[in-house]
Structure formats: structure tokens, C-alpha cells
């Protein structure tokens, strides 16, 4: 698939938050063959020395800064511009959140930010609550992909928004990337089987007992789900249909 002029062959995008050690990030990236990773932008803490996250992201990866911390479109635009000026490319994940309990995105502000940043030449991937009309407006606003949530961020609850995501996949001519909430590889596979273009996973990998192995497991599930989607699953029916011939039995 192509996004923002880049050929993306690995459909697992990885978030870099919550790893117990930054050293696990490049290992997870390599184990899963990940091409797109997200980072955030924050104030430097003057009291404590901090590690440079970019040093842990392999150079051939696309580093996609998110606008986390933004509470409205204007703040998201500011963060995106700063991130681009810092020389980390022109991809941005729009994340506008003012709800602190469920961390649900503000779709209205997200549309506004998408429009401004797409107009400035950014490759904009907006994180959104799945809603068909909002997704259509994001297309008009110039988004490069649409990223509906599967469940609240960091909840590992799975593809709770299944029906709405399915409608987006059906109706929206852009890649639909399920972002947030996927807790297990089987859930990522399910999203891919439905026709999602990719999934973005962070917490489920970073907080696993063995994050590197889990990154690999997600990568395999995503590839399997994609292959199944392309293969076209057979129909499901109410009653049994014998798989072996119903003639030539030995009993008579």
C-alpha cells in the first residue's frame, strides 16, 4: 500500500510508549519488520537527563510524531509544525483529546487540524472515533488515511467498534488503520480480515511479558489477516455442510 508517496509493505505500525526499556524498541521493530513507528513531542525535563528516542528507531523507519497533548486543532497544528521543523519528515498522527477518562478523540477538532496540515503538505493520519460522516470529511480535508479506534487507548479490549470500522472500510476510499485498543494478535488479524489496511499497536506489545516476541506475533497475525482478506473467506451458514463426499459410503 502507498501512503504519502511511501510504499508500505508491513501493515503493523508500532507505538513506542510504555516499553520497560527503550532498548526493546529497535528489537521489536526488527522482530516484526515494522516500517512505521510513532513518537510524541514533549518539553525537555531540565532536572533529569533523558534518552533520545530517535536513537532507538532504525533509520529506515518512518517516524510519525503524534500530536498527543493537544486539546484542540490549534495545539495539534503547533505540535505538527514543530515536529516537522525538527526534521523528522512530514508524517503526522493527529490526536486531539480533551477527555481524560476514556481518551476519546475530538472528531470536530481533528477534522480542522487535518484540513490545515494537509494544506501545508503534511501526510496526515488522523486518529478518530469511527463515524462515517466524520471519515468522509477527513477525506475531503486531505487525510492520507483514517485511523479509527478499536477500543479506548491502552485498554487492550479489542475491536469493540467492529461494525463502525467495517462501514468505514466499506465506504471510505482511503486506507483504514485500526489504532488503539487492540490487545491480542487475534484481534489484529480480525481487523485485517475485515479489510483494514493496517493496525497501529502499542500497549499490547510494549506491556507484554516478552514485547519482542509479541511484536513478532502481531506481525504474523497482521500478515495472516491480510492474506485471508485477499483470499476472500467463504460464506458462513447456519447448519453443517459435509466436507467429505455424501456418496459411496461403506455401510450398505
Amino acid at each position, binding site marked *: 500500500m502507498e501512503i504519502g508517496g511511501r510504499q508500505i509493505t508491513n501493515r503493523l505500525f508500532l*507505538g*513506542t*510508549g*510504555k*516499553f520497560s526499556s*527503550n532498548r526493546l*524498541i529497535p528489537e521489536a521493530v526488527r522482530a516484526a519488520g515494522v516500517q512505521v513507528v*510513532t*513518537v*510524541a*513531542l*514533549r*518539553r*525537555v525535563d*531540565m532536572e533529569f537527563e*533523558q534518552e*533520545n*528516542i*530517535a536513537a532507538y528507531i532504525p533509520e529506515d523507519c518512518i*517516524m510519525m*510524531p*503524534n500530536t*498527543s497533548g493537544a486539546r484542540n486543532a490549534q495545539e495539534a497544528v503547533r505540535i505538527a*509544525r*514543530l*515536529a516537522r*521543523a*525538527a526534521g*523528522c519528515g512530514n508524517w503526522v498522527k493527529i490526536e486531539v483529546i480533551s477527555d481524560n477518562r476514556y481518551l476519546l478523540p475530538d472528531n470536530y477538532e481533528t477534522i480542522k487540524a487535518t484540513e490545515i496540515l494537509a494544506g501545508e503538505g503534511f501526510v496526515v493520519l488522523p486518529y478518530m472515533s469511527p463515524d462515517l460522516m466524520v471519515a468522509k470529511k477527513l477525506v475531503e480535508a486531505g487525510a492520507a488515511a483514517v485511523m479509527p479506534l478499536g477500543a479506548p*487507548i*491502552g485498554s487492550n479490549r479489542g475491536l469493540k467498534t467492529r461494525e463502525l470500522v467495517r462501514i468505514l472500510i466499506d465506504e471510505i476510499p482511503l486506507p483504514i488503520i485500526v489504532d*488503539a485498543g487492540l490487545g491480542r494478535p487475534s484481534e489484529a488479524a480480525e481487523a485485517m480480515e475485515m479489510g483494514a489496511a493496517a493496525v*497501529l499497536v*502499542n*500497549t499490547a506489545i510494549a506491556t507484554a511479558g516478552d514485547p519482542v516476541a509479541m511484536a513478532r506475533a502481531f506481525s504474523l497475525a497482521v500478515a495472516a489477516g491480510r492474506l485471508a482478506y485477499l483470499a476472500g473467506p467463504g460464506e458462513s451458514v447456519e447448519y453443517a455442510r459435509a466436507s467429505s463426499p455424501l456418496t459411496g459410503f461403506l455401510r450398505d
Partner: protein
Amino acid sequence: MNIYLNGKATDIPDGLTISGLVAQRRLNPETIIVEHNYNLVKKEHWDGIVLKENDRVEILRFVEGG
């Protein structure tokens, strides 16, 4: 002299440039982003900006995130 560094009132010597501030704080210029009075300042211009009373300086960096 007082400036607002990452939102906090901070005392700095008169005549300090952005480069000087970065050096004083022992920050690696390669890994940070500097915003001066809400304008992004590229590294090559840090030397030319002398901080003034009540200036607002934000020093940012990329961190882990989803």
C-alpha cells in the same frame, strides 16, 4: 534576568543567547527543538538571538509515544 523556560520562571544571566542557554543546560543540540516567543528557531539561528526579560522559551524533544 527572568525568562519563562518551559513555562517556569527562570533566572538567567544577561546577554545569554539561545545557544548559550542550550549549553548552560547541557542539552544536546541535535536532539532538541527550540521555540522562542512561539516561533520555532532553527539551530543555525540560535547564536543570533539574545534573550530578553520575560521571553518565553520552549525546549522540546521527541519522546516515546503511541
